[in-house]
């Protein structure tokens, strides 16, 4: 085979473009937003399941295979996927999705994050994220911003449909904005201004709806609750008259019984924190609605 034929073959392989853009997202929340924006023009799938803790996904070779054919890989960043995504990217052997290329999109860096630690960082503080809390998709307003970021990147990859992606992103963003106003009213009506959670997963949701996360059941991020710490938390709850605990559903649900045995007056709700985290939750609207209902006690 001569040189010309080799180059012709390489060019041909490079030009065998898919009819649809192939998108891989690290979480179901991101794949759900991408679906809203890309509609029928993209094929999208998520690596993590909605029932899994996105910090601890295994870098299965089958994910590398999926990513090998991707035109775009969307991740949260902010070190959420640091323990597994680098291996998937390397294993995929797909230069399109290498960091720095158009096929790699980390949405976290374009968002305003909460709980960004100041001062010296140490692992003695637990699993801290230097660039801020990574659970950004739990805020409906930031979800709208993420949709616009994804729309912009899809437009770059498929300029012919740029206007459509922009329009879809805007519709999604506007829809969530108007629903957020209604959800806010419902949350205010509950009179609940303080809750306790298992991990700092719900930070952005609670911040958006002006609910204070008064205590965390994990003594430090990533460290499972001890009996002593659970007791401390229930005492904080008594002092501050907090009656609601939200347990993210990928954590051990047996903690509900432990809390109730100490203080039977506390209401504990096991809540999904991702799209597909429960069977009935097919998109972010349904996820936020479920979380609002959990605060209302109607879940």
């Amino acid at each position, binding site marked *: 085979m*001569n*040189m010309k034929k*080799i180059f012709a073959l*390489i060019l041909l392989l490079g030009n065998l473009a898919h009819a649809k853009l192939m998108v891989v997202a690290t979480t179901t929340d991101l794949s759900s937003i991408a679906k809203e924006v890309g509609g029928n023009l993209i094929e999208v799938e998520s690596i993590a*399941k909605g*029932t*899994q*803790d996105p910090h*601890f996904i*295994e*870098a*299965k*070779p*089958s994910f*590398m*295979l999926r990513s*090998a054919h991707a035109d775009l890989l969307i991740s949260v960043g902010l*070190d959420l996927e*640091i*323990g*597994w995504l*680098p*291996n998937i*990217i*390397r*294993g*995929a*052997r*797909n*230069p399109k999705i*290498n*960091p*720095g*290329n158009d096929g790699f999109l980390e949405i976290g860096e374009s968002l305003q994050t909460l709980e960004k630690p100041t001062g010296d960082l140490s*692992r003695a503080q*637990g*699993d801290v994220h*230097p660039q801020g809390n990574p659970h950004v998709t739990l805020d409906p307003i930031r979800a709208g911003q993420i949709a616009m970021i994804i729309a912009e990147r899809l437009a770059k990859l498929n300029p012919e449909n740029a206007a459509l992606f922009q329009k879809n992103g805007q519709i999604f963003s506007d829809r969530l904005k108007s629903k957020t106003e209604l959800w806010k009213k419902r949350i205010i009506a509950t009179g609940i201004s303080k809750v306790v959670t298992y991990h700092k997963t719900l930070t952005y949701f609670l911040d958006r709806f002006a609910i204070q996360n008064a205590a965390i059941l994990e003594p430090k991020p*990533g*460290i*499972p609750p001890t009996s002593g710490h659970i007791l401390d938390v229930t005492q904080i709850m008594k002092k501050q008259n907090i009656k609601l605990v939200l347990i993210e559903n*990928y*954590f*051990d649900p047996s903690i509900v019984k432990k809390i109730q045995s100490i203080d039977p007056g506390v209401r504990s709700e096991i809540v999904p924190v991702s799209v597909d985290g429960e069977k009935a939750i097919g998109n972010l609207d349904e996820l936020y609605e479920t979380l609002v209902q959990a605060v209302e006690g109607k879940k």
Partner: protein
Amino acid sequence: MKNFTILVFTISGMIFANSARSQTAARSGKGMNPDMSVNFMGVFQQGSALSNDRLEGDHNGFNFNEAELQFTSDVDPYLRATALFAVAAEAGEFAFEAEEVYMETLSLPSVTLKLGKFKSSFGKQNILHPHAYSFFEVPLINAALLGDEGLNEMGVSAALLLPFSWFSELTLQSQTLSNESLFNSAKSNQLGWLARLNNLWDLNDSTTVAFGISGLSGKNQFNRQSSAWGADLTLKWRPEVGGKYRSIAWTTEYIGSFRDNWIDAETSQSFEKLGGLSSGFNFQLDQRWSTGLRLERLGIPNIAPVNAINKISAIIGFFPSEFSGFRLQYAYSKNESASKADHYAGLQYNISIGAHPAHVY
């Protein structure tokens, strides 16, 4: 020669034409430093077959196993480099050695090329570093055939993702033949060849099964051919719901070999065939606790001068976080020609500091 030159130009064109940028974005405060980490392990142990002489590599009492210093970074838009140095106790002193130092391509489609000194992709166990072992030590057959540090040579590797509907990876490697128990070839320009085919299927969202076969060959110190082959089967399960707290990994591996004309240095007897089987099962009990059991037999086929050895190892581990672990292991082993069995018990610590590790599946 002409074809070879074209191939080299084509590959280098593909490597350097792509505009891929750095894999690791420079993070604040880190600048352009490589990701750095230190991993160290030690053990307090008592074994009927172990010496009380602290100058022996592995002895009763406190042992410092090793400390690994790892540096990884993108070199430029095309290459990524890993340098891993080990400090280990040898005959009462500490030796510093380059365990793995290599570069890998970042910007080639479907293939990763690797050049340098690295652990050969032979079977399941050989590519692991000690801190990632499921049990304290490698299976008997790995230690007997490839040595305590495994097959680790200088060479070149190509790992190709095959275009199938399941994950299928073909790895081809050409490497030096310095390994003393398998090759120790007389001349430095003699090269060995290795091939590995690894397949993985998702049975469902919770379960995977992986099957791999490996083979390698090269000249040995008697200027004849040494060959080794292996097959490994791994079943992994981690449920979609509650996967933080429960998982199973079960790996079975067979390694066989033929070292043509090989004479055992100790017994001066012919010692050409050596093979063995190991099957290890690990079960995660909770977020931080796990347990495991491994059964092994060295000597399949059973050829003198080595008598078959059967071994059972049981382990329980407590992992306070991703970065620390404490494990207790008991092992029973019996050489079929010996009258007494050997017993071993040890408590091991395993610590990691520095850059967050990327866990291999």
